[in-house]
């Protein structure tokens, strides 16, 4: 078993095939997209592979420590940030192949015209726990 993070980007991923921004879709197309995402998560719960899924607001800021007794320094948000994460799903699957297969299915979520977006998703393995037997 291994956990993988499927990352969805607002910006920073290569352009998808069906590259129409969401605000140009019809309301029905948006509903169909949301339904697809919900159904996908529900299906993974049923197969016992779902761990977590969350969406992130695009607005964020940078924060850092500024020394003892001082409030943290904040900066941003920066409109030009190249890589902007939109959300994630965490899955717990039997193989890397299965993670790739599921990411492929998630990327088929419908967009404009009800056609798959072919969105690029980033697939990142978790660092696991160390095995006991190593020699």
């Amino acid at each position: 078993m291994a956990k993988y993070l499927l990352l969805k980007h607002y910006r920073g991923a290569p352009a998808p095939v069906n590259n129409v921004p969401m605000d140009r879709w019809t309301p029905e197309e948006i509903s169909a997209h949301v339904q697809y995402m919900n159904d996908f998560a529900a299906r993974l719960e049923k197969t016992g592979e779902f761990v977590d899924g969350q969406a992130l607001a695009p607005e964020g800021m940078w924060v850092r420590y500024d020394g003892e007794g001082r409030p943290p320094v904040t900066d941003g948000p920066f409109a030009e940030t190249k890589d902007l994460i939109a959300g994630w799903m965490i899955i717990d699957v039997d193989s890397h192949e299965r993670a790739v297969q599921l990411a492929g299915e998630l990327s088929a979520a419908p967009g404009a015209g009800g056609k798959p977006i072919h969105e690029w998703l980033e697939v990142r393995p978790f660092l696991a726990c160390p095995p006991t037997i190593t020699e």
Partner: protein
Amino acid sequence: MDEVLLRSLTPGVLTVLVRRGADFAAAEDAVQDALVEALRVWPADPPRDAKGWLVTVAWRKFLDATRADAARRRREDRVEEEPAPGPAPAVDDTLQLYFLCAHPSLTPASAVALTLRAVGGLTTRQIAQAYLVPEATMAQRISRAKRTVSGVRLDRPGDVATVLRVLYLVFNEGYSGDVDLAAEAIRLTRQLAAAVDHPEAAGLLALMLLHHARRAARTAPDGSLVPLAEQDRGRWDTRLIAEGVAILQAALARDRLGEFQAQAAIAALHADAPTAEETDWVQIVEWYDELTRLTDSPVVRLNRAVAVGEADGPRAGLAALAALDDSLPRHTAVAAYLHERDGDLATAARLYAEAAHKAPNLAERDHLMRQAARLNAR
């Protein structure tokens, strides 16, 4: 109340229900309910006959769950008084449960989860915690696994090797939460080895005991990994080592070698060395040769290269390593170690850092990064 003792009764209770005619999935749910009830009630009111209590309560839970109307209720109450004898089991019942829960139609993760619940008696919550997934996900994984094996008949023997593979996974992978998975794997393997006459079951039990013996020495107080050569051998559990060695010797004497016996033999040779310097690497290399013959696994060849490096010097180890695919997990870490032993510290430092980036888990990554830092700071 001894929770482990309670859980050890699980397979026996479950098989009674199945023998009385309950289907496996419903019986398993009922036993789980009875275990939860026992944990609640027993501390204040312990029963005289623990297994009898569990059978009675589980059977009642089963009836509660399946009873649909009064007519059916009357019928089942009669069954309660006179349990159906069922067909005489051809093979030990507990053993059948192991086969069912490790059935080849299940994925490894499903087989692990089902084994821990139906044979181990762990709750879904405990299993979910051990594998860091939500309880709802684990519950689905288990019920799906039960559906998958629902058509499998319980009256013919399965393949012991698939069961051993599942128990090995339980021992080797998983996080320590509430439940000690390694101890649980040992308990289940011990139970299996007692139920089946199979040298590899004994071999796996020996392997687990010999590795478990080193547990206290394997991690530093700060949680970092301590490599075998640097472990305080005084902290190894000599009782577990003695037991593991005795079980292994009895298995080897039967002359039906398998990969778990060979792995246990390697662990036994390490256990036998009073200091790392006194390790019998020549014999360990011979066991790796046997393992290579048995499994032809690239991981075994990689470990063999380490052993060759100790037996015949780092140059020989590097030569053995050169024959292997460098995309193998831990290949770079082994190369770093052998280069350090060979005195090429610059190359070793670079390879340790590279290996840290490729490490499959946090503990190994931190360990490799420290090795790189140690050499860079010299």
